[in-house]
């Protein structure tokens, strides 16, 4: 019996603790239900803000996470934590004591904590962790915190799952800042110097800031914050920085092209999936394989395009005003979401057609401008299939279907949260030679 029952899926999405825990066990152990779970939750991914927290032992990560939990709960969020512990190499067993260090808020109703050891998972620890993050994402948590111990190679891979990556340092590193693995320095979106009440904290903040200053100017802005997690100081600023970062780059970065396409695909068989490197066949393991294959070959260019899309969206007043959010993007592709509220409804109580058009058009605009040149829309059409309903979250996924020297055409599928096709949009742009970000290098 490989499929997951409707009931179990509903329970999971409703946040039923047991259903979530059971689903996690299934994907963790790669048992027969794992494939069915992955398939069933695939359309429901990309909503959660995934926060990776890593750093050397002794930095006080668990205390910091406990404080972050408190802050996030206070802001009304439902938060889950995946605490990844090392295992005993000889027997493969492990003592997972980390969650109890997040004791205070770990017992809160709006918090779900799962401990994971690095015992022989088929496919590796980062793959398993990715699947667990997916389950928690589908279960509707606003934030999924992934905590890894240490700063080794597998920790770098795991933090790759995150939208926002926080690196925690203890004070007093001094010259040893150099000793921090290069991989960690590169991936950090936010640095936190914890135990700031101790001597050496100032020096560490200075050293980190100095190291960041030496990086190329186009490199992203990485704040260096200080906290005294045990005293609850500085934690709100960390949450603010994480949320600001997420607003810029979006949620669900880990999901990549394959899963994007799998999510957006209409249920009707035979419907084409989209261009690029996505295969036409919707493989049952699409969602899971995304984690293995999601590291694109031209990694830097993809990241660049994604970051450009984020920047363009961030400076679009209409995007902010309507409540649109960039879910993911890469060259020639963009996915944008909108959670429908009262303000979006028409006189019939369903989503205004103009709103759906705006959503699709935004994805169209970002996808066509992702390569750095101003792309001007010259033609657009939309067909509405079913009404958008209050409370639903619509996702518009734009894919490039054709590009010549001067013209490019895009198809945008708008779907509800459960994958139901809501509208289909097509658009054509005229490609100019002007950069849409005069100060940034072109694609």
């Amino acid at each position, binding site marked *: 019996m490989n499929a997951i029952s409707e009931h179990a899926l509903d329970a999971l999405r409703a946040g039923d603790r047991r259903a979530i825990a059971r689903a996690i066990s299934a994907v963790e152990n790669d048992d027969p239900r794992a494939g069915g779970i992955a398939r069933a939750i695939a359309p429901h991914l990309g909503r959660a803000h995934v926060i990776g927290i890593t750093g050397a032992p002794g930095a006080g990560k668990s205390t910091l996470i406990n404080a972050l939990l408190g802050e996030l709960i206070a802001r009304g969020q439902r938060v889950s934590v995946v605490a990844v512990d090392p295992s005993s190499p000889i027997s493969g067993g492990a003592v997972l*004591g980390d969650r109890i*260090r997040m004791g205070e808020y770990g017992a809160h109703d709006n918090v779900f904590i799962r401990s994971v050891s690095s015992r022989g998972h088929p496919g590796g620890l980062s793959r398993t962790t990715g699947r667990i993050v997916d389950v928690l994402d589908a279960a509707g948590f606003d934030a999924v915190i992934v905590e890894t111990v240490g700063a080794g190679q597998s920790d770098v891979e795991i933090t790759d799952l995150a939208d926002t990556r926080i690196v925690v340092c203890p004070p007093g590193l001094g010259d040893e800042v150099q000793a921090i693995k290069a991989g960690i320095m590169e991936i950090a979106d936010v640095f936190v110097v914890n135990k700031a009440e101790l001597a050496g904290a100032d020096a560490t903040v200075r050293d980190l800031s100095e190291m960041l200053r030496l990086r190329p100017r186009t490199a992203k802005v990485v704040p260096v914050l200080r906290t005294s997690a045990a005293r609850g100081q500085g934690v709100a600023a960390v949450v603010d920085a994480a949320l600001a970062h997420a607003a810029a780059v979006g949620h669900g970065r880990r999901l990549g092209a394959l899963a994007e396409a799998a999510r957006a695909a209409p249920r009707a068989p035979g419907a084409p999936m989209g261009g690029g490197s996505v295969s036409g066949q919707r493989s049952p393991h699409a969602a899971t394989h995304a984690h293995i294959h999601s590291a694109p070959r031209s990694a830097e260019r993809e990241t660049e395009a994604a970051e450009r899309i984020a920047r363009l969206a961030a400076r679009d007043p209409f995007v902010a005003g309507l409540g649109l959010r960039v879910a993911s993007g890469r060259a020639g592709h963009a996915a944008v979401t909108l959670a429908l509220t009262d303000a979006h409804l028409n006189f019939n109580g369903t989503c205004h057609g103009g709103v759906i058009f705006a959503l699709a058009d935004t994805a169209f605009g970002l996808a066509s401008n992702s390569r750095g040149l101003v792309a001007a829309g010259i033609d657009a059409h939309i067909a509405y299939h079913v009404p958008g309903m209050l409370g639903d979250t619509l996702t518009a996924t734009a894919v490039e279907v054709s590009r010549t020297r001067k013209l490019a055409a895009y198809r945008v599928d708008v779907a509800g949260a459960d994958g139901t096709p809501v509208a289909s949009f097509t658009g054509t742009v005229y490609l100019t030679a002007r950069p849409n970000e005069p100060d940034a290098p072109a694609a």
Partner: protein
Amino acid sequence: MNKPIDDAPPLLATAGEEPWREDYAREIRAEKAVRNRSGVAIKPLYTPRDWNGERFAEDIGYPGQPPYTRGIYATMHRGRTWTQRQLIGLSTPADYNARLLAIIAQGATAVSLIPCNSVYRGYDMDEVDFEVLGTCGVVLNTVDHFDTCLDGVDLARMSCSLNDPSPFTLLAFLLATAKRRGVPWNSIRGTSNQSDYLSHYVANHMFFRLALPAARRILVDHIAFCQRHVPQWNPMSVVGQHMQQAGATPAEAMGFAFASALQYADDCVAQGMAPDAFLPRFTFFFDISLSFFEEIARFRAGRRIWARVVRDRYGAKDPRSWRMKFHAQTSGVDLTRAQPYNNISRVTVQAIAGVLGGLQSLHTDAYDEALSCPTEFGARIAVATQNILREEAHLTDVIDPLGGSFYVETLTDEMETRILSAMQLVADAGGMCEAVAANLVQRRIGESARRFQQAIESGEQTVVGVNAYQTEEDRSARPALARPDPQRMRSHLAAFAVHKASRSAATVTAARDALARAANDARTNVFEAVIAAAEAGCTHGEICTTLRREMGFGHVQALV
């Protein structure tokens, strides 16, 4: 083959160490390397080559003279016997009082009071599950309860040892009771048992404890207050027993206990107290394991180390500062559930080691102590054991009778080395507070515990009735749990509710607010504020909750 006696080799020709070694090697069936619990290698024989008394004057000396290796008093047990301090605590204050008066009638010379685990944890009786109330100690939450516990006891004459976690509410209740009875505080004698908060951080985890910095401050406030107002009270009881029960070796337990004591002494000096003012009131509490000679040697070495350290480090001039006074309890961890009567023999061996080791006060476990709160039957045997050792076996006729033994003196030196090594580990980490915050001590103890467990699992260390000499289980030897009478406990609870309701809410609130203010003002003596709160009618739980809120709670680490 029968050799005629005339043909036997002459004795003198085969005398001496070398011939003995040869005979030994030839006759021993399987030579096993032996190490005691602290890891010292133990030989089959000790001779003047190991110890010849060269340094007798500097290292051994005489009882009552530094370095006190032979004992802290000139007369030791021959002059004044050790205090027979049987720990008791159970059920309601009235039940406790009855048991206490009975024990006193039987000859006990001091009071000891163990409160219920709920009190240890900082709760009032109405804040915990009913089932666990009063099973291991007396349920006392107010001054009135304390007054009842010690009804009929002359506070000016009886020394009281209280198991009293920070913030020392029980002493506060005692002082309030004394005031009611018109007994001046400067005649109150006793000990704040186990006031060593670091030992509760590291092992045992029984006592309510505030966050480390808060516990640190309250202890110093406690010591300072007692020095001024309750001068005959011992506010400082440094505990090696908890760590040893948690698995530390005897040397580690003593070394870490001394390191804690140094931390506390440093903190007192930092507060401006003169060493000779507070050191004489430092007492120690150690475990006595079944490792007979190791324990005797350890206590002798301990006295020597302490005398030298306090003189060198603090410049203490008063001989009373140099003396390591200690209470000892026979180790419950060595007792078994299987064949429980065997525990009587075990306790006897442990007690002898403690007596020969020169303790000042002794608690002998009842044979069923490993299983439950001891029954009257078991407790009586435990007390009788002490009387037999003293009066039938005449163990106290000679002071430090093992002094001069080639083995014991060598072992004393070896134990000294290992104790100092444990102290050095802590010193290198920057002191006991630092070492505990870095989990160094806990990890070390855990390693020793694991090693010992492996020795038992592998059979290397025999435990009679458990991994050797097992027999069919005899359930009759295992007594049922002594439980408090549920009716009486419910009445006690009901009376407590009535009492709380009858207080002036305004007075209580004002008292708690004053306590909270004191907690946040570094210049105030928090213990003094605790006494004021107790006198104003605050309950133990109310006092603990207030301080916990203001000063933070010391959680237990989840380390394996």
